[in-house]
């Protein structure tokens, strides 16, 4: 068995006594595609906050490629190869689509290199390639703030891919997308897995099913169960937590 790419060891996060995460353990193998589901308040977003360094856990450790991420600042974690897409799309609204992507693919991200040089040929190709993947090539000079919700979602996913991280953390990528766009997003994420490790948080069960990936269920800040979508949906604890939700999707 290979060393896990990401390993969360007994993570506990407390907000003024309220335990957002308690004793959470999780392993991701390189190249894996993993879906995380859970009802509201299960700690899904907090869990991403811990990995990306936004929140410091009160106990436990986060290991990435064998080194601890605790105490590392957000931008360093991002440079180590962890990219994140936020729950509601967060793009730089006053910049154009092209500029948003250019910032994502820029490397190194140091002031001086940004000041003196433009993008090199590869990076420029990469920007155009990304725009064509997410179908925004005709919007290249549009301010990102004027895009529709779905287009922003895709732009942010494209930025995430452009960062070329080893681990992609994708928080609710298909909220507010049409069915067709949802399917395309699922295909995109599936194609990324293998080269990259992808962790998807979503509420949309059809989407999760389409990913054909192992599923982890979070509940009240810790892992309730893990398995394939069918296994998870058959689990009585999950049904209890979700009440009718899974039934509905089954039917």
């Amino acid at each position, binding site marked *: 068995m290979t060393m896990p790419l990401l390993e969360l060891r007994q993570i506990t996060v407390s907000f003024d006594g309220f335990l957002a995460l308690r004793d959470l353990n999780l392993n991701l193998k390189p190249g894996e595609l993993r879906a995380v589901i859970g009802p509201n308040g299960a700690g899904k977003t907090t869990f991403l906050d811990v990995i990306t360094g936004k929140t410091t856990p009160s106990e436990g450790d986060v290991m990435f490629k064998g080194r601890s991420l605790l105490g590392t600042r957000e*931008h360093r974690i991002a440079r180590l190869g962890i990219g994140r897409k936020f729950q509601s799309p*967060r793009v730089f609204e*006053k*910049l154009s689509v092209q500029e948003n992507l250019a*910032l994502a693919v*820029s490397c190194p991200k140091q002031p001086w290199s*940004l*000041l003196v040089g433009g993008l090199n040929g590869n990076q420029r190709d990469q920007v155009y390639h990304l725009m064509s993947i997410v179908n925004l090539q005709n919007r290249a000079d549009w301010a990102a703030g*004027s895009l529709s919700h779905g287009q922003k979602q895709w732009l942010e996913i494209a930025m995430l891919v452009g960062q070329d991280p080893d681990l992609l953390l994708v928080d609710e990528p298909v909220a507010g997308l049409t069915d067709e766009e949802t399917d395309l997003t699922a295909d995109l994420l599936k194609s990324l897995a293998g080269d990259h490790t992808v962790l998807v948080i979503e509420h949309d069960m059809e989407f999760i099913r389409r990913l054909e990936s192992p599923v982890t269920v979070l509940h009240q800040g810790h892992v309730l169960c893990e398995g394939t979508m069918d296994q998870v949906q058959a689990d009585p604890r999950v049904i209890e937590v979700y009440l009718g939700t899974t039934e509905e999707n089954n039917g």
Partner: protein
Amino acid sequence: MFESFTTRTKQRFCWPQLLLWVVVIAVIVAAPVVLPVFRLNLLGRFLSLAIVALGIDLIWGFTGLLSLGQGIFFAVGGYAAAMYLQLNSSEGQPNGIPEFFSLYGVDRLPFFWEPFHNPVFTLIAIWFVPALLAAVLGNMVFRNRIKGVYFSILTQAALLVFFNFFNGQQKLINGTNGLKTDVTQLFGQMIGSPEMQRGFFWLTCLMVFLTWFFVRWVVRGRFGDVLIAIRDDEPRLRFTGFNPTLFKTIVFAIAGGLAGIGGALFTVQSGIVSPQYMAVPFSIEMVIWVAVGGRGTLVGAIFGAVAIMYTKSLVSEAWPQGWLFIQGGLFILVVTALPEGVIGWLKSDGPRNLLSRIGFVRPIGTYPQLEMDGQDEVQT
């Protein structure tokens, strides 16, 4: 030609811009001939303030950091220039040190004056010391992710600290009286003489151009995009792998350095530097130049500084009581009715909208862009 963050289309050569350039250059060439020395001197001073305004535009208009403490860097630049000039012309004085020291019974030059004997050091110190100061102060604040209004309040407090300090230190830098430069000598000429003042006017014009090119270079391209991204959504930028603290420290230092250059040029043209340059109201006034001109547009910053200061001097001569009312009204107007400033308003088809509202011009029917690829609906 001008950088804007709302519309980022390719700039094409066009006649109005060429005309503008011709007018600007003509004014600069003609000014020393046409204007009396007093007015020319005022214009020179206001142009040196435009350099400060460009710095403020860089940190506020582009990066979203509203500093109310630019007076610190402005005054420090001014003091650097004044200290050199004082030393340069104090040979005949007792102990060979500037005259004011004898008033307080100081007979040895304070240590930090020593390097200012050297003109090269002074030329560097004018921008480097304020920039360094800004970098240190800025980094202390940015490191802790203090931002928005807290940053503004802290810069204001810092300003007051420096003001009190300079004001109280007679024995070091002549306290509240400040340092005079108009009777000092440079190249064997009095600083206050008309010839020297004309020279400083040219120098200031040159510096405004250079600063404008420099800031334009900084805000164009990806570095400028990062600054705008900081203003838009700083946490998001962090997760993209950029370190906003570093970028903010750099631009704050640049703005500080520019304020220092502006301060030095202002000092030699007004003949004195005093702690009043660090007065709280003056530093807030600097912000309004940029706000009126149009934050995020470089020409707006220059225009705002010169136009407002010129209006101020005209109004103060004609109706001394009126200026504070007008200035106060400007602050309120610019945030409630004209948030883009004058240049921003001009660029966003403001005049046409105004005219069409009054009924002079028929509004042009605008249609959504034709979609060539038959994509889904146009969202606005």
